[in-house]
């Protein structure tokens, strides 16, 4: 079935998640939708399946216009979505999960689920689409790949002829990816239209007939696979034609002392990886989000267990140390999840700054409010936090001011190592400049910094070298001056 989105605008708060984007899925073809996080891919899927209504534009299924924001109408028209986060009931069987909400009925008054029929139909669908599942197995006993097959069967069971797969390979192991790609091809061969969202160009080029690249809510490339190349797509993803950035002259701050050393370290979703960061050095970490950056940050901060390998700070083995010991040893952490992981929203700026001191957070005694206010005022003055009120609850601050408090809190201690993730996301230009300045000063003071960012300009402007992460491993390392978009993009998405 053909499914098309034309000139969709969808405004979320101050940003245009989709800004006049059009795409067209055709029966029997696989359309790959490529783009960085925040480019508008998931919003496009939500508009297509009626979960949200666009502010303008139209969705057409098989030539007929769909009512905006009507999920039931979309399902009835044959649109099916496999969400990135599975929507399964782990305690129920595969067959029950598939039938839920569309149960065939039997027995008196149609009270009962016709399980025999569900079973039969599931097995038939599974057979036809080569998606082997055990209809009687409980979902909680299944692996990720099997769960995804159940999700696809759920959609097919409802008669979907246009399938939207939101980053279906993100959760899969390499072997499972190949099987999924075969399934996608087979579905298209069977006459369905498939939208396949992915960051990974090797998958995209293996499966797609057509490729659309979204950047900042706009379609920046739409071509048949045969008419484009990996380099062209990679460039479109990260934004070709950037003026080469002026690279800051680096102060000779890098010392000959290794502040942080990871040797063949692994944890959930990461590694094994090795990395050395010298005192006074900034190592930038590039990569499409969800490729192990968070695990890396949490591992260094002491919040993810070290499964194997060696972690050293200043040459001292610290693999077994928890977060308190790490913070006492001078490890700082500015997480990407500012309000959930970084700051305590209902507490004041002063309390948050004071709790940054591990002696306060992890010990008994009086909470010195005067001292807390003093420290908070120091952060407020130093970074220009607004409102300049140490007792304002943190959740009442804007994102930029929260970030200043968070970074200021960490830099107020004498740090040896700092892990920063997405320091300027959602932050206005002025605040971003101040935050960058603070990071440069920390480097000059001899702090070893691991900077995780999806802003390539930011990485180039601050880093002494840039490593690229993909699938939980480092796949390349570049100097800032050689880290042009094309090379970074190719490493990030696995182009040639």
């Amino acid at each position, binding site marked *: 079935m053909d499914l098309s989105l034309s000139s969709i605008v969808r405004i979320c708060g101050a940003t245009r998640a989709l800004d006049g984007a059009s795409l067209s899925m055709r029966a029997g073809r696989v359309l790959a939708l490529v783009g960085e996080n925040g480019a508008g891919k998931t919003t496009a899927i939500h508009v297509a399946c009626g979960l949200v209504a666009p502010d303008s534009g139209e969705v057409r299924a098989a030539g007929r216009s769909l009512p905006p924001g009507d999920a*039931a109408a979309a399902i009835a028209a044959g649109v099916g979505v496999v969400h990135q986060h599975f*929507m*399964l*009931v782990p*305690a*129920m069987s595969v067959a*029950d999960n598939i039938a839920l909400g569309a149960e065939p009925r039997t027995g008196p008054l149609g*009270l009962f689920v016709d399980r025999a029929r569900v079973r039969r139909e599931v097995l038939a669908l599974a057979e036809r689409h080569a998606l082997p599942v055990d209809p009687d197995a409980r979902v909680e006993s299944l692996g990720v790949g099997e769960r995804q097959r159940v999700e696809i069967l759920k959609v097919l069971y409802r008669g979907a002829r246009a399938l939207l797969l939101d980053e279906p390979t993100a959760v899969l192991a390499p072997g499972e990816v190949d099987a999924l790609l075969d399934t996608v091809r087979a579905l298209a061969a069977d006459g369905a239209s498939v939208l396949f969202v992915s960051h990974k160009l090797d998958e995209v080029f293996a499966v797609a007939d057509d490729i659309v690249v979204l950047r900042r809510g706009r379609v920046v490339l739409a071509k048949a696979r045969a008419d484009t190349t990996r380099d062209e797509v990679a460039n479109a993803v990260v934004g070709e034609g950037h003026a080469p950035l002026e690279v800051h002259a680096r102060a000779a701050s890098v010392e000959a002392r290794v502040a942080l050393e990871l040797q063949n370290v692994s944890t959930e979703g990461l590694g094994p990886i090795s990395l050395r960061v010298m005192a006074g050095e900034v190592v930038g970490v590039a990569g499409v989000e969800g490729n192990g950056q968070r695990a890396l940050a949490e591992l260094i901060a002491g919040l993810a267990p070290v499964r194997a390998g060696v972690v050293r700070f200043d040459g001292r083995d610290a693999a077994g140390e928890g977060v308190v010991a790490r913070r006492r040893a001078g490890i700082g952490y500015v997480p990407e999840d500012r309000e959930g992981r970084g700051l305590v929203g209902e507490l004041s700026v002063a309390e948050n700054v004071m709790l940054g001191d591990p002696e306060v957070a992890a010990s008994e005694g009086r909470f010195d409010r005067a001292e807390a206010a003093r420290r908070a005022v120091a952060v407020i003055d130093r970074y220009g936090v607004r409102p300049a009120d140490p007792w304002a609850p943190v959740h009442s601050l804007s994102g930029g001011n929260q970030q200043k408090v968070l970074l200021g809190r960490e830099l107020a201690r004498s740090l040896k190592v700092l892990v920063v993730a997405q320091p300027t996301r959602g932050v206005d230009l002025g605040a971003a400049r101040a935050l960058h300045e603070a990071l440069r000063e920390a480097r000059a003071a001899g702090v070893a910094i691991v900077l995780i960012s999806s802003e390539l300009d930011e990485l180039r402007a601050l880093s002494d070298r840039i490593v690229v992460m993909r699938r939980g491993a480092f796949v390349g390392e570049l100097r800032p001056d050689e880290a042009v978009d094309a090379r970074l993009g190719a490493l990030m998405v696995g182009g040639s």
Partner: protein
Amino acid sequence: MSGLLVFLSQVVSAALPVALAALGGVWSERAGVATIALEGYVLAGAFGAAVAALATGSAWVAAMAAMALGALLGWLFATATVRLRANAIVAGVAVNLLAAAGTRVALKVLYDSASNSPPLPLGASSGASVGIAALRELAASPALWMAPLLGLASHVALARSVFGLRVTACGENPSAARSLGVSVERVRTQALVLGAAIAALGGAQLTLHQREFVAYMSGGRGFLALAAVILGRWTPRGAIVWAVAIGALSALETTLAGDDTMVPRAALALLSPAAFRALVQALPFGLTLLAVMGRLGRARPPAALS
């Protein structure tokens, strides 16, 4: 022989209210809503049964009235928790208070008494001292016949019906259910109202057995029922089995209270008869604590339960 019959009938009449309340609890907790309101449902059911029995003289009408009043209270609880999203624990406290105070207000208004209703026109209670009479009395109770029926129906419905499947899905992963077009609000409301009606039937059994309504007569049976729900791992069968066990303990306790010579000789070496009875009473709570501590196998509540 007669003694055994009396004991058995005591077990059944002690187990019935707890079993029905627990069955009601299974329905609402399986839908993902914590239900400490069981106590209130039992009390409301007991009162509704008294009013209807006094008005009509029919035990069956009394049972129906109890279920209707319970359903009303369950609907109120569902409106607060499901529609208005009030905290289920707080709303449960309110429903329990409402039932306790509301029945007392109605007692005063209807029967001008602060503590109990007039005796029900169902024939005097025999005091269950004669075996056959005790059994005959029990057999006249609608709850006796409806409890196994409701238990079986609940078991089958949860395991095989469309409604049961949806209730389970709403209790385990409401967003998955919602993504498939299931109205979580409606399913939960239906399950809560159904559960409340069943629990209230347990209250009717109390009234019909005692031949009168007494203020606060639920006496913690709703909380015992909650224990049975947990010990029975949120299944109708498990809940009923544990409710019968709790009923047996309670009947044992009553028997011991009447006759200390029945306390096992071995226990007497360590405990006084009163202490032994207290121990018997404490068992359901203690066992439930052990169960939720993971010391009695795995007790996994429905995932969406707060």
